[in-house]
């Protein structure tokens, strides 16, 4: 097990955001984290990134406890991409990649920037300020930043939200291709069920801070007698007590 989450809980004042969740992710697997808005996905990811202090429980990455091991040592092996956070708008694309490459201690940085910019087709707007880019271009730059350190663990929070179908497909294809060529363990939070079916080896369904189901997409669809993941999601999200 590469990532182990044990009895993880988070209470904000009196609000129980995450309630004793347990799961593990094997090395080089992609796991989808699904659930309706406010179910605790972002809080769980925040705890895995060390941004939120768990109220209870442990996160173990490659046999090292995230809360007791040196923060920077673990974070150098992780990266995160979300359309809800941005890179400094006034810096050019190249400057942003250079700054983050240095922060992540990337060796042969110029080569790495060139490599990733060719892969993600961002080289033609290298010298433009990040704030001047379209959302599709920003999304690819953000993805480039999240892969700059060749992370062993990649956390993706709705990576294709607000993208047109063409760019969305480009990003999904790139993630698939990247995963096939590199050793990377991915946790993908998404509301796009087609994306989840396409990219994930297995899924975890959350609701009201708890894990309510888990398994491969096919297993979960079959178990709930639905035709696809979207219908299964709706059934679980709308059920009163959708616990496994």
């Amino acid at each position, binding site marked *: 097990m590469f990532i182990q989450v044990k009895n993880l809980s988070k209470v904000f004042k009196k609000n129980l*955001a995450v309630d004793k969740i347990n799961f593990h992710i094997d090395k080089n697997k992609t796991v989808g984290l699904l659930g309706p808005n406010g179910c605790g996905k972002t809080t769980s990811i925040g705890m895995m*990134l060390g941004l*939120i202090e768990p109220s209870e429980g442990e996160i173990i990455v490659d046999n090292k406890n995230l809360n007791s091991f040196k923060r920077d*040592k673990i974070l150098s092996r992780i990266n995160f991409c979300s359309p809800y956070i941005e890179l400094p708008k006034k810096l050019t694309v190249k400057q942003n990649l250079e700054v*983050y490459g240095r*922060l992540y201690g990337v060796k042969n940085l110029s080569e790495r920037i060139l490599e990733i910019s060719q892969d993600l087709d961002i080289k033609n707007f290298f010298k433009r300020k990040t704030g001047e880019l379209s959302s599709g271009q920003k999304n690819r730059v953000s993805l480039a930043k999240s892969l700059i350190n060749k992370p062993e663990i990649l956390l993706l929070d709705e990576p294709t939200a607000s993208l047109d179908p063409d760019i969305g497909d480009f990003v999904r294809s790139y993630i698939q291709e990247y995963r096939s060529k590199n050793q990377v363990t991915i946790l993908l939070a998404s509301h796009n069920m087609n994306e989840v079916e396409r990219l994930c080896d297995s899924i975890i369904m959350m609701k009201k801070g708890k894990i309510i189901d888990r398994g491969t997409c096919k297993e979960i669809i079959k178990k709930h007698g639905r035709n696809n993941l979207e219908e299964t999601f709706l059934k679980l999200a709308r059920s009163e007590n959708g616990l496994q």
Partner: protein
Amino acid sequence: MDFSKIYALGLRHIYLISNSLPRIIDLIYWPTVQIFLWGFISKFFTLSSDYYSNTVGIILTAAILYDFLFRVSISFNMMFLEEIWSRNFTNLFIAPIRISEIITSLTLTAILRALIGLVPAAILAIPLFGVSVFKLGLPLLLLLLPLYLFGVTLGLLVTSGLLRFGPSFENIAWASLFFLAPLGCIYYPIEILPYSLQIVAKGLPLVHIFEEMRNILLNNTVNYFDIIKSISISIVYFILGVIIFYSSYLGAKQRGTLINMGE
């Protein structure tokens, strides 16, 4: 400490400044206006006051030193606010950089920002008003050191407030220095203050720094005991500022505010 990461974060702010001519002008503009304003006031006082008649530009020197403190503190705050305004906060705090390295980087970059504005203004004062802050000689560096430490401390306290209360604390960032200025005895001796405020003022490094500056310019002597006192007080405040910053960071992790800090 990993100095390549400290440099990387500093580089982010150097790029920010170098990419924008208006930003560079803004950094230079305000100190220059200050120099002009206090230069003329200083000239008027020199001609009209017995107290200042022996030392041309004592007020202007005070204005330059105070502006140094102001620029260091505002620079520290601005760099932190830039991360909030650009919604880059999460990216920064998930990067493998320690909190001590973030503080060090902001501290070092703050002096760079401050000097970009202040050095041209201080040089401009020489031909315009015949006042050179560099006349203070080596003690100038000893006066700038506690000002620098105290400026960073104020920056740390304001950024701690931003971590604790979010971007709404921004207004306090601008007001923080003006709050302490009357107690700093920048332009007047401490005896001007009521006795009760004198006691409070002596707990700040500013009084000792500006009293010593006046002593050097008026009497041509250096009281190293006062300088050491101001440096010591500044170090105590700096350590306190670092502790408060760490405590605010840990509090923000508890409340989960680091993940959605933005405009």
